[in-house]
């Protein structure tokens, strides 16, 4: 057994998994509240990465560099991703709130195709090089073989984001309203919660998380493209289902499990079949435990 190799794979899997987890949170929150697979969520993540790329480009040419650029780019990307998420919900999903289940799903697929092609037309269909914004830290020198500085930043930022999200949902007014809406939207409305606003807030928060994921992953892999959203979206949804959809800790766990499983499969068996491991895991989980790892099986009442 080569433990060093295993350890490297585990670290890579954790990093990948935490990105999946960030995107999966958006899926799981939206699904929990309006039972909709927001297919266009991956596209929001892609738009976040693209906006960050543009801001970085403008700032770099204006003579700034390093961490300042990263922070500014991340903030602008988050603002725009939130704006897109909000608008998307207003246009594509709100008119279909009471339609049959299939309609919003198809609308979401349409929105996803639209956004992807919109970015392709407005920018470029080619791969763009994303600058390395996270410089190597001096204290990371001894272990940089296993965990690069960028990986550390990703892990730390993800952990902080999760904590912030938990606090938001547990202790704030809007978080309480979100939990109430998730349990019973009609009842929530009756006790005076503005459900429309809660849904908008959910989309905005989910988009913010997706934008963070977009900026982080773009600065790690070093390239972006208008099509990156699709695969990331599907994988993140897989992660959300894996953990039990609608369940927030489940999404994080699902993301990590998926990331590690994928990296181990790619490392030990074959890297060409990386995506097959992800989907295979999804199919297995759904057959064996349809409610997901942390989800409770709901008995259907008639």
């Amino acid at each position, binding site marked *: 057994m080569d433990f060093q190799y295993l350890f490297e794979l585990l670290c890579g899997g954790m990093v990948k998994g935490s990105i999946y987890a960030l995107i999966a949170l958006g899926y799981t929150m939206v699904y929990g509240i309006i039972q909709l697979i927001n297919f266009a969520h991956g596209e929001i993540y892609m738009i976040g990465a693209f906006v960050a790329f543009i801001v970085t480009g403008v700032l770099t040419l204006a003579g700034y560099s390093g961490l300042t650029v990263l922070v500014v780019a991340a903030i602008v990307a988050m603002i725009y991703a939130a704006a897109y998420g909000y608008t998307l919900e207003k246009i594509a999903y709100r008119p279909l709130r009471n*339609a049959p289940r299939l309609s919003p799903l198809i609308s979401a*697929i349409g*929105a996803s195709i639209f956004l992807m092609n919109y970015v392709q037309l407005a920018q*470029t269909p080619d791969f763009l090089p994303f600058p390395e914004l996270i410089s190597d830290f001096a204290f990371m020198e001894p272990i940089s073989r296993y965990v690069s500085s960028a990986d550390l930043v990703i892990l730390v930022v993800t952990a902080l984001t999760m904590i912030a999200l938990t606090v938001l949902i547990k202790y704030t007014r809007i978080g309480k309203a979100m939990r109430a809406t998730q349990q019973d939207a009609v009842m929530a409305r009756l006790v005076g919660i503005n459900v429309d606003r809660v849904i908008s807030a959910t989309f905005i928060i989910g988009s913010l998380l997706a934008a963070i994921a977009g900026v982080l992953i773009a600065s790690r892999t070093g390239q972006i493209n208008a099509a990156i959203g699709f695969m990331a979206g599907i994988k993140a949804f897989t992660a959300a289902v894996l953990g039990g959809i609608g369940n927030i800790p489940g999404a994080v766990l699902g993301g990590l499990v998926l990331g590690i499983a994928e990296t181990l499969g790619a490392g030990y068996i074959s890297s060409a079949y990386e995506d*097959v491991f992800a989907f295979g895991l999804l199919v297995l989980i759904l057959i064996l435990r349809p409610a997901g790892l942390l989800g409770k099986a709901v008995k259907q009442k008639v």
Partner: protein
Amino acid sequence: MNHFKRSLGIGLWFMFLTLPLVVVRVNTLSQEVEWRWANMLWVGLAAFAIAWAWRYSIDRRAARQAQGGSQTRPLSARRSWAQRLSDDPILSRRLLMVAALAALAFPWLVSTGQNFYHVNIMVSALIFVVLGLGLNITVGLAGLLDLGYIAFFAVGAYTYALLSKNFDLGFWTCLPLGGIMGMFFGLVLGFPILRLRGDYLAIVTLGFGSITKIVLENSDVLFGGAAGIAGIPRPDLFGLVLDGREKSLYSYYIVLALVALTVFVTNRLKNSRIGWAWMALREDEIACVAMGVDMARTKLSAYALGAFWAGLVGVIFAAHNNFINPDSFTFMDSAMILAMVVLGGMGSILGVIIAALALKLLPEYLRAFAEYRMLVFGAVMVLMMIFRPQGLISGLRRKYEYDVSKGSDDVGK
């Protein structure tokens, strides 16, 4: 005036929204930033105009409704022309005859001499008509959302390609084999996902579709890898030697016959016992099972029959193109077929045919807009869901309604 302000607000919002992506373009090679301010103006104006028109039309409709009062139009007037047409057996039969004649004569009308470009385009459009009709069984009739339908198409295409390459089997032997292989895969994949509902089903089928493509791409020895398989023989006709034009014509008539067969079979299935079970399952699974419908058998049959048509037409696709590679079987193609079913009207045969022809033929002839094709396609999918969720021609089930205009005393007591 209020409308003006609100529309202005929407225009400004979209200008803000599109600011970084549409206006700025960073060229990383030459280290330059390109500012395209004119685009922003256009976006703002377009958003303003659309918002204004939207408000105006809503106002108009409200005004008309207020004027019309509570008068409801009689039932017969509420139905669309297509439904009224299909209710009239003599007229619809005549129209069917005209359509059949037009389809048979089509290649002789458009292709002269060695020019068979239009025929080839029509063949690929008709292939998608069959795919649309096949998916219509799974999605439209049985309500099982399948996002990986293209995988069965791939199964059919690769069945023919491999059998003809390795075992020298002819087209006509492989045609049923392709269909059976598709059906077999439908059953194999259908079993584990019987318990899943709606959204989960969609995502698992999407997963299957993606796995199929990845496997095809990566197994170089068996499936030819990303390069695909070339030199697939065209359909044979009793050993006659055909030239290019005749080959296209032959493919055209084969696929046309398949379309006719699919329409016939789907139409009969729709009004059969199993068809009613599918529709009942689509409307309410629990109630349907409670009424004694065998859920597993009904779902599997819908899945397998949908896959059967895809496998069948996959063989024709491989034979017509001479060449296949995994790029023909992407998620976008699955989404395209799904869009045909949805835009045409779920469960409606005529609607699916029209939508499939429109979606395949319009992009071919509107080359100037080729860039914007997918953009418009996505937008149309969203707009259709909002404004006309039942599709172009809704697949209405036969139902018995009380017609108010005729009036009768014994109702309401």
